């Protein structure tokens, strides 16, 4: 009855919150991977420069 509806309403609401958190976590992992990729690239260029000298 009304209670069941309220229950499913609340459960849907936390499900949505979880979805938002999933997206946030995924984005922060992407950012971390991107940060490391640029870092490795810089290292390579640096080493290449040193080798040339």
């Amino acid at each position, binding site marked *: 009855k009304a*209670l069941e509806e309220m*229950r499913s309403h609340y*459960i849907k609401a936390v499900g949505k919150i979880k979805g938002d958190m*999933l997206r946030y*976590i995924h984005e922060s*992992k992407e950012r*971390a991977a991107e940060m*490391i990729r640029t870092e490795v690239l810089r290292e390579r260029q640096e080493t290449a420069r040193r080798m040339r000298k």
Partner: protein
Amino acid sequence: AARFLEEEELRSQQILEQLDAHIEVLKMESERTVKQFT
């Protein structure tokens, strides 16, 4: 670097398990409430 990403992967799995656990608790507690009042 690779270790950092591995740890990130692990941490994200852990946090998701925690979130699921809270949702399960809510489901059970609310189920109990519904039963109590019907």
